[in-house]
């Protein structure tokens, strides 16, 4: 379905001509060999000489002799050949023509050479030409398509052995005039070359197959500079359309999961629409963000984090409002490239210090006319691992019925009365042997005489019923259009997701317009406008907060009938507090509202001025702006002083980042062997953000959430701005296409540093040596071998306002007298930049024509002069001190292995594996302070905080171990409980020992199947689900060691059964085996009560079946009668199951960090349960 008005057609033709012209020149440059000007590979019989020694030879024998010495084939009818004719030849170095002419005379035959075929016929009449040499060409036309059936423009079509050929046009069509015996070689960057013998065909349609190994891959590097991958002196890994196929998650970073060596992607366990944490090559900044810079179409975007701070773990119940990168519509993404080390990212300066993820969105370029692309998918999200609740014991203590309840009378008999407090589940068995007062009354039953209920267990899976199946529907429609001077793409995306928690919804809309136009040969413009809207509703609360349903479930009495809790809410719509619960989960998700809206514009415009064929100037201005508002409300009567009279919090945030670049690029071939590229550039970056919040309490009219309806309104505001100016240069020198040298340098001036230290410079140098080409090695086994080495520095700037100190006013006052307080942070007036110095070596090896590829990197980086607000002993009078001193070191290896173990015409099996291991070490803090608390759980009774400790790896979990004797046996107290050591020690580390991914792709004709496994070995976390369920006796594991019944049939007390494994200290200092049997709460809960953090640290290793995609792509031929040009259907499964983990007993997913702040991966805090996702995807173009 293509519209081709005439003017467009003319323009397109013009463009095609230019394109073809350019391609031919290029091809000639690259491929031209000693062409004689002939078409085809054949030589005339006049030019081919043979030795011939034959006696009395038949014609057939002569023909065979000629055939044996030349490329020619004789074509004749056996029966037409006279068998009588026998001839003698005794000649050396005689031309074939001469021989044929002789035969013609003797046998009355005529010969016609068509290319390599010599046709033999009878010479019917004299005068006829007896030897004719014709080089006959055939016209071959056809279409080159990509893996999706889309026309592939600019593909080269070359006649094998000749170096001549053509390229496909904008639709992928080509037409070439070739000898009919020719073999055509189709090739295109990123695809496997294919050879097709022309044979008798006049039409050749060919679908190109992506080259998994991509030998001459072009990668986009800093500032959009396209480079051949083999020229890179550092590690970069690109994900092309194949890796990005299929919809997986509404967050684009999920594409990176388990695919890129050295990249760890962790999703916040805050339900759908939450943020993601991406760390490349380990954490290099102790206190700052360790997330990479995201650059979309050359313009850095803001990857703000709205996931709350670590303090949300305890109490406040923060919501994860998603992150900046999560706004990007995954279906607009064409490719992603991960630049890992400083050498790769040096040109991005400070903000690229943690690596850069370059995202290229789809554009209309390269597709003539108007095309439409539709991508639709539906996915379903279901519970995966779920906490295991016990169902045998009820509220109380001492395994003893309900002895701690007080009694009320019903019909003259006293029955236990369950209180409203948080009743621990250390009571008697829920076996129905006793009755208790029924507290589970509907409103109309209140005030009636008390009644009793059986003290029994509830259905084991009752908590699961609270959750629902999440559904995501997402659609993107894109229209592309192009002519020879302009191209554009307009896409409209829409997705709506409902989470597994009731009422949790995320809606996203995106409109993206990207276009380019060429004014004339010199001047061209390009631009993009992307509007993004994200709406969130009832995002679940994090942490062990009363607003988190999972916390309420973890601590509730196990005899609580959840059906009742739900019904009660539905009946009354009011806050109620069933015994043992803080909040009814149904009330939380329905009545305590939170919603958020973000409107965001990302755009850029650029102009390129091409002075001549080697010098050009590009100017670009990019803007990322968003306005966001968050709303929360509590109805009158909600728990807590602050909201008991109704409350609303509204906050509005705006943020703006402006990037302006100017780049002068020179790309010149200095001689046959040397090529030089030099870029000189300058950049200005300004950032502005403003937050306004109104916290309003005490409503005049219930359920009206307008600020003016509240009596007590407390506004607060926060403003931050900063600016950075930079100049940079990069130079690339290439020698003979096998030795490459890159040098970069950048100087930044940052407003956030001390006035005398605000300028800083950092260089990098990298080199790549393709030894297989340099040494001209046999490429049949080792197809490509490359060694790369780089050395780089990157400076990083600071957050604003670390150089000043002052006083703050507060909302509060006493008797109208104003309050002010001195800031607790000691500023650093002479703040300097952070500096990362790194080196890396790597090799890139391809074997057996790319059937196997191996990429290995070793890197070593240290970041010094760390800027951090170091929490110091508050006994100093201050809470933190800005320092410029810390040093952290990261070193590690990355290995990527690609292989095609099996390959036939129809079937193909590709394997891609990656492995990486990073080792970090905190070398120094400020010299006096030995540890920095990365994550403060703010839990007074016991902590398990995450620290950066001098001499240790980043991310140690610090807390209390069990008290043990010299032999390592746990010491049980006189009271029969475990105890903790008096001082804290290291309980684990949050970083995995290694991570890896294994991706298998099977393709058979149009079918493909993709299986991705995600491996993580090591990496510990503290589980607060385990902690609370151990403390409250709700976990299934707490059944062990409890007395199943309290009394025997005669009513006598039975002894306790739980004896803790350990020893007791005798008065003489020796130890003897513990024999004291204790009740459940001493056996289990005391581990939490006594703050033994060690008990709750879990090994986070896992193997996850991350994704399975089964797809079918219709062959272009099958779609001929439809309006579609391509059609792809796939079934998607994501996070299907864990093949290995250490958390089954507790029912927690090993990846359950509640948010993405530093160190948070070391904590699981009553996470939203883990889920598996499956669904369908349809992608079609026409």
């Amino acid at each position: 379905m293509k519209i081709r008005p005439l003017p467009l057609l003319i323009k397109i033709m013009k463009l095609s001509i230019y394109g073809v012209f350019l391609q031919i020149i290029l091809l000639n440059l690259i491929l031209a060999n000693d062409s004689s000007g002939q078409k085809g590979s054949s030589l005339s019989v006049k030019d081919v000489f043979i030795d011939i020694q034959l006696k009395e030879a038949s014609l057939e024998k002569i023909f065979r002799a000629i055939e044996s010495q030349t490329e020619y084939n004789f074509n004749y009818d056996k029966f037409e050949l006279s068998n009588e004719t026998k001839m003698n030849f005794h000649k050396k170095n005689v031309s074939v023509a001469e021989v044929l002419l002789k035969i013609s005379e003797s046998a009355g035959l005529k010969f016609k050479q068509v290319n390599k075929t010599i046709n033999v016929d009878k010479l019917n009449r004299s005068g006829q030409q007896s030897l004719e040499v014709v080089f006959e060409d055939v016209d071959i036309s056809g279409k080159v398509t990509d893996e999706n059936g889309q026309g592939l423009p600019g593909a080269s079509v070359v006649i094998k052995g000749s170096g001549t050929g053509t390229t496909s046009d904008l639709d992928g069509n080509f037409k070439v005039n070739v000898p009919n015996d020719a073999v055509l070689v189709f090739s295109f960057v990123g695809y496997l070359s294919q050879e097709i013998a022309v044979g008798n065909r006049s039409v050749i349609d060919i679908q190109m197959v992506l080259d998994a190994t991509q030998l001459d891959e072009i990668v986009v590097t800093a500032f959009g500079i396209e480079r051949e991958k083999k020229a890179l002196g550092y590690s970069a890994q690109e994900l092309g359309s194949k890796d990005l196929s299929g919809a997986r998650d509404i967050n684009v970073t999920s594409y990176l999961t388990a695919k890129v060596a050295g990249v760890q992607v962790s999703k916040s366990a805050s339900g759908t629409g939450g943020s993601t944490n991406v760390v490349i090559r380990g954490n290099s900044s102790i206190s700052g963000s360790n997330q990479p810079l995201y650059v979309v179409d050359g313009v850095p975007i803001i990857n703000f984090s709205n996931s709350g701070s670590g303090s949300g773990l305890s109490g406040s119940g923060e919501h994860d409002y998603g992150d900046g990168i999560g706004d990007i519509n995954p279906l607009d993404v064409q490719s992603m490239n991960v630049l890992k080390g400083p050498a790769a990212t040096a040109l991005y300066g400070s903000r690229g210090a943690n690596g850069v993820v370059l995202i290229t969105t789809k554009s209309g370029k390269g597709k003539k006319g108007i095309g439409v692309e539709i991508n639709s998918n539906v996915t379903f999200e279901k519970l995966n691992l779920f906490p295991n609740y016990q169902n045998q014991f009820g509220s109380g203590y001492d395994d003893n019925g309900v002895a701690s309840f007080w009694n009320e009378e019903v019909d003259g008999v006293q029955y236990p009365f369950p209180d409203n407090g948080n009743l621990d589940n250390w009571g008697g068995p829920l076996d129905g042997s006793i009755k208790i007062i029924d507290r589970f009354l509907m409103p109309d039953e209140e005030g009636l005489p008390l009644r009793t209920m059986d003290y029994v267990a509830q259905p084991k899976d009752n908590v699961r019923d609270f959750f629902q199946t999440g559904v995501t529907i997402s659609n993107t429609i894109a229209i592309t259009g192009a002519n020879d001077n302009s191209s554009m793409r307009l896409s409209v995306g829409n997705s709506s997701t409902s989470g597994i928690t009731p009422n949790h919804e995320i809606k996203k809309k995106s409109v993206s317009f990207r276009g380019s136009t060429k004014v004339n040969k010199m001047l061209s413009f390009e631009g993009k406008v992307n509007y993004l809207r994200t709406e969130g509703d009832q995002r679940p609360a994090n942490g062990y907060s009363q607003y988190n349903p999972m916390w309420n479930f973890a601590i509730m009495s196990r005899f609580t009938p959840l059906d009742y809790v739900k019904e009660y809410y539905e009946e009354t719509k009011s806050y109620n507090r069933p015994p043992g619960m803080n909040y009814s989960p149904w009330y939380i998700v329905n009545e305590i509202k939170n919603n958020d809206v973000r409107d965001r514009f990302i755009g850029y415009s650029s102009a390129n001025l091409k002075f001549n064929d080697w010098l050009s100037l590009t100017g670009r201005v990019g803007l990322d702006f968003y306005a966001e508002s968050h709303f929360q409300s509590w109805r009158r009567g909600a728990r807590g002083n602050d909201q008991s009279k109704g409350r609303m919090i509204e906050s509005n945030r705006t943020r703006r980042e402006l990037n302006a670049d100017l780049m002068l690029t020179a790309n010149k071939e200095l001689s046959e062997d040397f090529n030089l590229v030099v870029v000189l550039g300058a950049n200005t970056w300004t950032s502005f953000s403003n937050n306004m919040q109104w916290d309003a309490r005490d409503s005049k009219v219930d359920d009206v959430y307008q600020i003016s309806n509240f009596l007590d309104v407390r506004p607060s505001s926060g403003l931050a701005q900063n600016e950075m100016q930079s100049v940079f240069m990069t130079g690339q020198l290439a020698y003979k296409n096998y030795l490459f040298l890159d040098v970069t340098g950048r100087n930044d001036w940052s407003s956030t540093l001390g006035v005398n230290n605000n300028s800083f410079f950092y260089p990098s140098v990298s080199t790549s040596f393709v030894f297989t080409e340099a040494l001209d090695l046999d490429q049949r086994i080792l197809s490509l071998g490359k060694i790369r080495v780089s050395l780089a520095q990157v400076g990083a700037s600071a957050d604003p306002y670390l150089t000043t100190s002052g006083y703050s006013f507060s909302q509060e006052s006493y008797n109208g007298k104003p309050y002010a307080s001195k800031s607790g942070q000691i500023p650093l007036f002479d703040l300097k930049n952070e500096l990362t110095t790194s080196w890396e070596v790597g090799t890139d090896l391809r074997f057996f024509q790319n059937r196997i590829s191996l990429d290995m990197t070793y890197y070593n980086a240290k970041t010094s002069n760390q800027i951090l607000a170091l929490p110091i002993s508050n006994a100093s009078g201050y809470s933190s001190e800005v320092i410029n001193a810390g040093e952290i070191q990261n070193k590690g290896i990355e290995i990527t292995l690609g292989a095609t173990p099996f390959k036939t015409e129809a079937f193909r099996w590709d394997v891609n594996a990656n492995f990486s291991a990073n080792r970090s070490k905190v070398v120094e803090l400020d010299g006096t302070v030995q540890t920095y608390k990365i994550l403060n759980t703010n839990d007074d009774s016991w902590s398990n905080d995450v620290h950066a400790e001098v001499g240790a790896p980043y991310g140690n979990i610090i807390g209390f171990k069990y008290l043990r004797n010299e032999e390592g046996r746990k010491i049980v107290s006189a009271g029969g409980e475990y105890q903790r050591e008096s001082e804290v020690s290291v309980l684990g580390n949050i970083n995995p020992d290694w991570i890896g991914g294994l991706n298998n792709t099977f393709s058979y004709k149009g079918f493909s199947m993709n299986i991705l496994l995600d491996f993580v070995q090591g990496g510990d976390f503290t589980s607060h689900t385990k902690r609370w369920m151990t403390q409250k006796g709700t976990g299934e594991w707490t059944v062990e060691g409890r007395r199943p019944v309290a009394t025997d049939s005669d009513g006598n007390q039975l002894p306790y059964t739980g004896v803790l494994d350990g020893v007791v200290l005798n008065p003489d200092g020796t130890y003897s085996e513990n024999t004291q049997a204790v009740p459940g709460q001493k056996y289990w809960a005391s581990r939490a009560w006594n703050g033994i953090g060690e008990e709750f640290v879990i090994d986070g290793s896992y193997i996850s079946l991350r994704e399975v995609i089964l797809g079918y792509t219709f062959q272009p031929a099958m779609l001929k009668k439809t309006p579609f040009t391509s059609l792809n259907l796939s079934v998607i499964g994501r996070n299907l199951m864990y093949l290995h983990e250490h958390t089954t007993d507790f029912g927690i997913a090993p990846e359950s960090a509640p948010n993405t702040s530093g160190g948070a991966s070391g904590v699981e805090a009553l996470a939203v349960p883990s889920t598996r996702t499956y669904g369908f995807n349809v992608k079609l173009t026409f």
Partner: protein
Amino acid sequence: MIRDMKLYIKIAFMLLVSLLINISCTDDFAELNTPNDLITSDVINLDFLFTRVLAESIVHSEENGMGTTGNYCGMSYSGANAPFVSGDNSGVWNRTYGDYSRNLSDIIYLASTREDSEDLVNKKAAARIMKAWVFARTTDWYGNIPYSESSLDITKAISTPKYDSQKDIYIDLFKELKEAVAEIDNSKASYGSADILYGGDMDKWVKLANSLRLRLALRIRYADETLAATEMADLTEANLITSRSDDAKLYTRSEFTDQLNDQYSSLLQTKSNLAKRKPPKTFIDILKDSNDPRLKVFADTAKASFPGTPGYESIDFFGYRGTPLLGSAPVQQKYPYGDQTTSDWSDILYTPTQELPIFNASETYFALAEAALFGLKGNTSDAQGYFEKGIRLAQERVLEMYEGAKSELPEVESLFLAQGGGESDAAYLARVDAHVESLLESHKITQTEIDDFIANAAVVTLSGSLEEQLEQIINQKMIALFPQESEGWAEWRRTGYPRILVGDDNSALAGTIPRRMPWPTSEQTINGEQYQAALEAIGGDGKNTRLTKVWWDQNTNRPQHPGTVEWMEQPWVQTN
């Protein structure tokens, strides 16, 4: 084409130049990196700092009379195992260092360095007195603490401050209080109304400083009697807090959550579902044994029957019955101290406006009585007179509390009493009113009762050995100190009184009451070297515990503690 080219080059050149100009323009960086709303030290009003620190340190302190520390002097009962759970108790530490000491030191620093420092002497003196109070409490909790290297000016701050010995700290606190009094000059400006404690009356600040010196001197008398006597020597009754109008106290307020009475706050949240807090056995028994009229103001009688327990079916009224500290003895072995068999704190303590004192006149007299009795100051014969005055002032304070509660009780009771389904508003209000009336009647205290008590009660007369007289003084003093839990705990540690009964089953403390609070765990990691040095100073590993004594806790004559709680099968026996 050529013309175009020239134009483009011109544009390109201009762009380059403009960008370079922009880059060289970093002059505004300093301004850019200063928050628009920054308030700097040259403009800050000291009054704002002082008001806040007064309100925060007094109103927002943990001293509410129903906390954990009160368990250690029989003043409160916090339930469950709370008093015995090990772990950080870093509240006082964090508030002192994270807030009060920084702001008070800053006032002192600014008042001494500003150009008009001569006119700021009174503001400086008041800040020094408050700072002494703050640090005295902190060292009483934790023993040796960072002091001389703490809270220095921001340009000289020491991030890893050393720990000073408690003795050195006390010596400096005496010096500070003395110097502060000396520099007070009534001709110079005071904080005026920003001084929410005394309204700018510097004479009262003198009294507070001197009274604090008296308190601290008495506290160290077992550790350094000479120093105690020396410090007391130049104090006269005239310049001490000796009347209710001198009392250093603030009141809780409803304006902000942080300033609410904790009890009222809990009530607001949970309303009729509120599980009321319990007064401890020690507190109740002291009042009950002497028929003290204050008992009915402070506490309710136990209300429920307890028919479920064999042997106790017939008991349906427990009267005033305090809750002892039981530890974690198995429930079935315990004497039945269930919810309904012990007294609750009375509703009078739930009213929004509660007095939060840091020094009351009654304490002055109890201190003078003890000092006189032991020859530190005045004559032994003065002791009885002081003692009586102390009791009278303490009684009258409770009368004031009762009178003050009258107007606020209706609101409190309407929170306690849920409106029944179908009950009309009028009927509900009438029910609340009737309830308030009966409460005011049953919890009533009158001046006559007080006069009568002082005239007739046996406990008002000191008798017996010196040690017995001390016990009588401290028992009364503890009641008078309510709700200053830290002070009560310090008295118990110093003297061993009042006697407290503790269940014998609490693993962490083996049936004993804490003698100090361990330094926060964070110090071990964040101030490691100084922490280790401090640990060595108190005896090394295993000493950062609750059982390690602070310097002034050196009374060798303390009564044996604790006794055991009676079991079901045993009669109630008051053991040591």
